[in-house]
């Protein structure tokens, strides 16, 4: 039997989620023995539209060229898996969607904006093509990615972690930073996967893994206001790494005024 094949594609992103593979050490060499890596530019393999069993996509769709590429990637992949916050929910760059700032920002940053072919919206992959499985996180963690590869190779749907960071915090015996220090922690509405890293480091979760299942954002917003956060600050909490994820977008916009103004 042929070895299963994988591809790793990069769209609008920081390259950090691909590092789940490149930082895997011995496991990277093991993986290369188990699967046929057909396309992974940073690792030195280029065959963008080769037919593969699993295509991992890092990055959001934010240019006219990427619109075409994502259709072609979908067309040559059996499973398409999004790798991280940008591909899954638009990422940090989706902040330009809030006020439709693409044109203004392009003109502010570039002397020759005519050469910059960005789309008005930076969007998740699922806004354009069917996605088979989503891996959340900014960045995804290596264990999560290698486990998903193994499960897909065995032909089973990967187990999705939708638990809240709070649950993980308890499992880790971490002290609650909201209860003990009044920090505006987003753990109650955020999906786990990080290992409750921020609370364990004594800081409030900033929701880099996106919304958990059934997030009660309304109750958390009231709590944040109770902690003394101004509306613009509540908006800043929800509208950050995963501002385009529907649950956070909706919660953040309740308190948002253009440019996070609080005048």
């Amino acid at each position, binding site marked *: 039997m042929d070895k299963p094949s994988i591809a790793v594609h*990069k*769209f*609008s*992103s*920081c*390259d*950090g*989620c*691909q*590092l789940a593979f*490149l*930082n895997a*050490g011995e496991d*990277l*060499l093991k993986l*290369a023995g188990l699967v046929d*890596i057909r396309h992974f*530019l*940073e*690792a*030195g*393999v*280029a065959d963008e539209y080769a037919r593969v069993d699993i295509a991992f996509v890092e990055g959001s769709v*934010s240019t006219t*060229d*990427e619109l075409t590429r994502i259709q072609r990637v979908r067309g040559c992949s059996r499973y398409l898996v999004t790798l991280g916050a940008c591909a899954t929910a638009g*990422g*940090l*760059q989706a*902040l*330009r969607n809030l006020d439709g*700032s693409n044109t203004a*920002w*392009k003109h502010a*940053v*570039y*002397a*020759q904006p005519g050469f*910059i072919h*960005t789309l008005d919206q*930076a969007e998740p992959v699922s806004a354009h093509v069917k996605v088979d499985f989503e891996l959340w996180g*900014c*960045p995804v*963690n290596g264990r999560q990615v290698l486990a998903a590869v193994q499960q897909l190779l065995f032909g089973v749907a990967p187990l999705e972690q939708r638990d809240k960071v709070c649950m993980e915090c308890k499992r880790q015996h971490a002290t609650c930073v909201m209860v003990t220090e009044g920090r505006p922690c987003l753990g109650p509405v955020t999906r786990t996967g*990080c290992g409750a*890293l*921020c609370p*364990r*480091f*004594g*800081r409030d979760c*900033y929701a*880099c893994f996106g919304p958990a299942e059934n997030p009660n954002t309304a109750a958390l917003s009231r709590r944040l206001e109770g902690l003394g956060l101004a509306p613009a*600050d509540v908006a*800043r909490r929800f509208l*950050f*790494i995963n501002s385009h994820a529907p649950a956070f977008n909706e919660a953040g916009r309740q308190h948002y005024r253009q*440019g*996070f*103004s609080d005048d």
Partner: protein
Amino acid sequence: MTERSVSIHVPAMTRVEGEGSLRLRIEHGEIRELALDIFEPPRYFEKFLEGRRYHEVLDTVARICGICPVAYQMSAAQAVEDAFGLEPGPWVRDMRRVFYCGEWLQSHALHVHLLAAPDFLGFDSVVGMAARHPEVVRRGLRLQGLGNALIRLLGGRSVHPVGASVGGFFRAPVEAEVGDMLEQLHAALPDAHDLVLWAAALKLPQDEQAFTSVALRHDTDYPFAQGRIVSDDGLNIAIAQYGDHFVEEHRPHSTALFSLLHGAPYLVGPLARLNLNRDHLPAASLTLLLQTGVVFPSSNMFHSLLARTLEIHVAIVEAIRLLENYRRPTAAQVAVTPRAGIGYGATEAPRGLLWHRYELDDRGIVRAARIVPPTSQNQARIEADLRRSLLQYGLNRPDDKLRLRAETVIRNYDPCISCATHFLKIGVTRR
């Protein structure tokens, strides 16, 4: 000269961080057009930083680059603290240097083994190389892993770490964690030592050329996160004066901005740092450098690889020095009081000088941000180098040889295109 007309399209440049392409047009044996097309999509960080609070800046700028997030966080912390008139003290300064050592170690080991070495040993990728040179690859992966562990010690995770803050760190490691790390660092010294000698013995192209090196320079130490900006043609300025000497321009074929020093290309990164700071190397690293017999300052661009491996050694030696008498402080950060002002930050990212400027209001909200990453500073230099390297190599060589040489020259700069906002399709057109 040959009149043949050839056109090649290679999909995208491999083993670089980010995406771009090279356009090369050769007519009648002369280069008519040579441009690095960077098509990494702009993400507008400088714009969406506006309106964010100072304590969100580090988590934001980390996302510019997954390979050097620590560099972005350290330049930003320094700039915000500069604006607030805040001095976080010696413990924080030392631990930031340790944090930074982790990133140099991780990023340099990744570049040397996964991105650059296959060029010099004749492989397409590290996977092919691992079959023939398993011990070299394993040593590289061990060093890379150690770098990641060192970042995790202070940052919790190695990509987009969560441990750093304006004013210091959220958490100080406990003595036992530092003790474990010290053991690993000591155990890695022989690997780093052997790696430098291995790099010095590689058959690298001889490629002497004139260029201006730019790097930070500190009074006594090899530069990480402190110092003045100096060059080998006499520049010596405070970081706030950067804008008086360096200009960024936007060219049509790129989403990155090109930086020039007094109107001319210049080099940042490991070779520039070593050329300007050889006398500040830790004693053990200097001894090792002398053992290689390679003389620095060097004008062979390919000595960048050797400089990178030596900096792996420096990072381990420095981390050991700074952690050896570690005492856990009662507080890992100093209190922060926002005030209106402008602040500057400049640190040595693995790929070179990374300069930030922020304007903050009295509530600590960012009103303007400017970020100049290393790769946009090296871009004009890369194009100038490519032109003369290809001419010296001979334009009549077959297209695939020309392409490999061009890619090798470019990769040698370890361009991080995600940072530069932006790598490599090559199209050679010949007439």
